[in-house]
């Protein structure tokens, strides 16, 4: 199950929904908003946007890649859009496999591939401005070694 959602993610239901009698291992990865801090400023929240339906299709492609590479009984990936507050989940990946090795490897693969190919972008909203992660474009100018200012 591959979904992009606007509302908060029910992580417990996603994990328990992966339990199957033919699988002995369920590996889960949850990405949450982390409050980064630098030079007296801090991240207040993240905001995600996506190019849909391309992003939905890319999540499904990652699921297909996983099923080609590993023996898995269940794969689900849910990514949230919009504002995600500190400690809240933005992405949840759940993989069930007969054995633990493939479950671990596939869940790690999923998050790495999401960061490579899925057209979703995140903006860090700091107490002193925002930054588009990866592009270093934004309104923060005073602090970062990342050359936010030079692109503006």
């Amino acid at each position, binding site marked *: 199950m591959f979904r992009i959602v606007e509302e908060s993610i029910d992580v417990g239901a996603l994990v328990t929904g992966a339990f199957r009698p033919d699988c002995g291992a369920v590996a889960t990865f949850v*990405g949450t908003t982390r409050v980064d801090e630098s030079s007296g400023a801090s991240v207040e929240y993240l905001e*995600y*946007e*996506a*190019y849909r*339906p*391309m*992003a939905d*299709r890319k999540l499904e492609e990652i699921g297909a890649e996983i099923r080609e590479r590993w023996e898995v009984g269940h794969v689900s990936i849910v*990514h949230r859009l919009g504002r995600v507050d500190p400690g809240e989940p*933005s*992405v949840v990946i759940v993989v069930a496999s007969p054995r633990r090795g493939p479950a671990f490897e596939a869940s790690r693969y999923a*998050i790495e591939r*999401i*960061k*490579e*190919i*899925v*057209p*979703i*972008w*995140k*903006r860090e909203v700091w107490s002193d401005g925002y930054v*588009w*992660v*990866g*592009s270093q*474009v*934004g309104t923060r100018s005073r602090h970062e070694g990342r050359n936010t200012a030079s*692109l503006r």
Partner: protein
Amino acid sequence: MNGVKVLLFGAAADRAGVRQTELSVHSGVTLGELWPILVDRYPALVPMRDTLAFAVNGEYARMEDAVSPGDEVAVLPPVSGG
């Protein structure tokens, strides 16, 4: 219509100041030929050039790929999901 719809995302939308525009093109123009037309309208995109990827009709495309009227082109900054 003889235009392509251009969608901009993330930092590209931020710098261009728009999330969507339309460019008139003749059939068979490449993405590489479309780029100067786009930055002529939104010069703030110029410094991002090397960081951008493009999609045509929802799939990643190369600069030498052709675009036709009616296509949807997406301007994609480095993705940062997760």
